[in-house]
């Protein structure tokens, strides 16, 4: 039986999204850069570029380099700071008919709390996504997300400083991502998103120099998809929280891999650089998949991997 109008909306952790496709942090700017081509109100959600307490100018160039089926980035968390975001960018975002998620980070546990607190009073932000892949200056620069204790403390302080749903974005650069996932779940996270980028490096053989000024950066794109799918699979069956899958999604079939593995929604990042319409194509593709397979509600695909 064919479904003529499949329902591709999804509900997770207090959020209801019109479809499961969300623009990933750092790839869609503040939503206006791609506005000529992608109407943000067609997306399930938009995660804006990671916000810190104070503006950050980012790393010296070169900040990006293409790698086989992927790219490395060392942007350096450049952003205008949470205050400027609230004043200059939020008014425009508030008017959009889509779920707006503010990605936040800090250099110390307390800073995470301060950024969350600064956003508390503003309406227009529907959820917070906590980036725990950045270095903890109080722990010698080790990423918060590599230590379950640190990840839990960051989650707690953000929960204490907001009324909105809290998504914690996990780093894949760990030995056991399930351990981190369980720690943030216990600390009160409402949703888990994974994966952030994989650490990597590229060398210019002729010049004998690293291709990034920062030496190393984060790998994204199709090359990381198998790593991401497995991690989503592991985490989804280990926690009772909804999961958002991220990692090299280019087309609808890729998004379905993540959903079958256990993700309720997905984020699309690098694909937008290759094809600005990628997210819209994925949304259409998911609708088509449902129609062709007699699926009336996309939510039934989530976690449907045959044992």
């Amino acid at each position, binding site marked *: 039986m064919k479904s003529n109008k499949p329902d591709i909306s999804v509900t997770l952790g207090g959020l209801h999204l019109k479809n499961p496709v969300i623009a990933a942090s750092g*790839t869609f700017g503040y939503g206006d850069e791609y506005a000529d081509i992608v109407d943000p109100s067609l997306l399930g959600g938009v995660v804006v570029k990671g916000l810190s307490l104070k503006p950050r100018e980012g790393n010296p*160039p070169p900040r990006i380099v*293409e790698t086989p*089926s992927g790219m490395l980035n060392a942007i350096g968390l450049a952003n205008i700071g949470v205050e400027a975001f609230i004043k200059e960018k939020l008014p425009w975002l508030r008017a959009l008919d889509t779920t707006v998620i503010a990605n936040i980070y800090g250099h110390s546990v307390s800073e995470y709390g301060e950024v969350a607190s600064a956003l508390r009073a503003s309406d227009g932000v529907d959820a917070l996504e906590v980036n725990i892949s950045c270095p903890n200056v109080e722990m010698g620069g080790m990423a918060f997300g590599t230590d379950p204790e640190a990840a839990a403390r960051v989650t707690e302080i953000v929960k204490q400083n907001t009324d909105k749903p809290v998504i914690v974005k996990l780093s894949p650069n760990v030995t056991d991502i399930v351990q981190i996932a369980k720690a943030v779940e216990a600390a009160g996270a409402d949703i888990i998103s994974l994966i952030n980028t994989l650490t990597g490096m590229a060398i210019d053989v002729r010049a004998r120099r690293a291709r990034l000024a920062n030496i190393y950066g984060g790998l994204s794109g199709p*090359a990381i998809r198998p790593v991401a799918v497995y991690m989503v699979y592991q985490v989804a069956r280990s926690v009772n929280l909804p999961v958002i899958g991220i990692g090299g999604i280019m087309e609808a079939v890729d998004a379905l891999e993540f959903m079958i593995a256990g993700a309720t929604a997905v984020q699309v990042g690098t694909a937008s*650089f290759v094809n*600005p319409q990628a997210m819209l194509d994925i949304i259409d593709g998911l609708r088509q998949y449902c129609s062709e397979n007699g699926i009336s509600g996309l939510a039934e695909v989530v976690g449907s991997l045959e044992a």
Partner: protein
Amino acid sequence: MKDIRAKVKYNRVVASNTYLMALDLGPEPFKPKPGQFVMLRVGHTTDPLLRRPFSIAGVDSKGSLHILYRVVGKATALMSQWSPGVKTWALGPLGKGFDLGFEKDTAIIVAGGIGVAPLIFLAQRIDPTPMIFLLGAKTKDELIANEILPKKGVDLKISTDDGSMGYHGPVTGLFEEALTRVRPRKTIVFACGPEPMLRQVACICSLQGVRCQVSLEAAMACGVGACLGCALKVHKGSKPSYAHVCKDGPVFDGDEIVP
């Protein structure tokens, strides 16, 4: 800004390792200004993944884009194999183009190597005005074929690093000589080429009080100002800061790149 399914009209060799490609943008082409660029999709697979930025070298009467490019790596090597009829995607027009708001001044155009690409489009559009066009290349074989260069009322001078044609030396040598023949306050300089050449041109202009615009490039992922990958240190006001070549440029005021 539009992402248009474009079709190759022709793709021919115009110098050593250098091609001129015309892209048909269909019935509703975007209308670029000189100095703007496009992000071209090069592969259909995941490798090469990212689009590549190319300056627009001209627009014909039907709105087709001219792209002048040199084969320097994987993506340009693939492009050089495209024959008429091949389809691709062109996102554009992107970036800030040249500021053409000047009257009756002499324009000195300084082109280093493949940097000549956006300057051909510029020359098309600022005609008529007294124009000195300085074209530099490493060697004679890399000089762009004459038929592509602007003709009317243009004082064209050539330089080659190895002296195989024209002035023997870098194009900045021709530039310094040209400056002696003009009045600094009645001159505007447009330059595109290797970054060290642009910095030298900008420095000379700054010292002599000549207005100067330079077109830069950078590795890009998005091309629209979303990813922040193409950062460039610029000097505007008291403190240096990062601008983005795709959105704040690729054309910058010469003073911005001189510390």
